[in-house]
């Protein structure tokens, strides 16, 4: 049982971004990701909620190194934060193999 310390980056965003992130995350160095359907409310709700039902968010989780995490986060923020409902956070996690 090996232990590694990795970042768990979580992105909560509009479901319509799924195909885009699916293409971009691996290209930026993510070795995998896990997506769950979610719904929610945030500061920008109403102003830019693009789904046409409340239940239209996804939560994307990526376990990756600090370097990749930095890259993913700055990519996602710079590309999507202006026009899409989005929140990004991260924390360290112990991964077992």
């Amino acid at each position, binding site marked *: 049982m090996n232990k590694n310390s990795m970042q768990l980056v979580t992105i909560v965003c*509009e479901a*319509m971004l799924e195909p885009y992130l699916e293409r971009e995350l691996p290209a930026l160095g993510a070795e995998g990701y896990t997506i769950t359907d979610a719904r929610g409310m945030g500061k920008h709700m*109403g*102003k*830019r*909620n*693009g789904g*046409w*039902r*409340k*239940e239209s968010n996804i939560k994307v989780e990526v376990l990756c190194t600090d370097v990749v995490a930095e890259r993913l986060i700055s990519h996602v923020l710079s590309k999507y934060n*202006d*026009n*899409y409902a989005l929140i990004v956070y991260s924390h360290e996690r112990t991964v077992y193999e």
Partner: protein
Amino acid sequence: MEFEPITLFFMLGILAGITRSDLKIPSSVYDALSIYLLLAIGLKGGVQLAEHATQSMLFDSIVIVGIACILPLIVFSVLLKLGKFKRADAASIAAHYGSVSVVTFSLAITFLEQLDVPYEGFMIVFLVLLEVPALVIGVLLARYGAGKVKWGSLLHEVFFGKSILLLIGGLLIGYLSGKDGIKPMELVFFDMFKGALAIFLLEMGLVAASRIHELRSHGLFLSIFAIVIPVFNSVLGMLTAYMLGLSLGGALLLATLFASASYIAAPAAMRVAVPEANPALSIGASLGVTFPFNIVLGIPLYYWLVQQLYL
């Protein structure tokens, strides 16, 4: 007084929405019903096309699409000049109102069939043709002189988006199989149509009730806009139909197509191509106001207008 049950289903949905009932149509059922309706409409059109395609259809199509391209331009100017909307928002709303709503069209067909008024079976072809151009024009209006357009993504989104794919797919299947080939499926795709539409409209009522709240900014202007523009567009539609010599039923369908605003294909396309536009405005207007208006008052009104024109 006679009530049309489909409209009553819609109103029941509205009622459930505004009373915050716990009634929810699961989103997968909503998806399934919309796939079914798109396929069924396409199949119906395809079967009719196989039997009644006419020579003049090509000419008619060119005229109709040409006139339909003017719609988003008018809507855009109204919003920009009169409504003081941001360029992106005006363009996005213009795309919604220039495009069409399959469900509104289905209700117009149901309306005609209830009254036994005949119509040209190939009208469904115009439904397909009218869905796309306004989206392209909307993007051009938003981008004119600014930024670059991701045409690749946009065109893919539009042509392989499920509405167009299922409509054209159904059309082709119906056309290739013909009336006899489709017979064993008539029960599911044709006879069940109205019942399925009723359940779909229950859900649409729930959705529409939740959308009207989104018209916070620009609320009054947009609400009036969302009723006046459809009526104006419907008149353009019936005049076009009259000019082309379509039947009275066909004129109602074209009027309804022009009057209807997209709330499935257009939001998806605009979110990709003009993401800085606020979708709450366009969906609030098209789904929260125009759709209910068309369903409950618009279609009967257009029918009355068409009758005057065809006296």
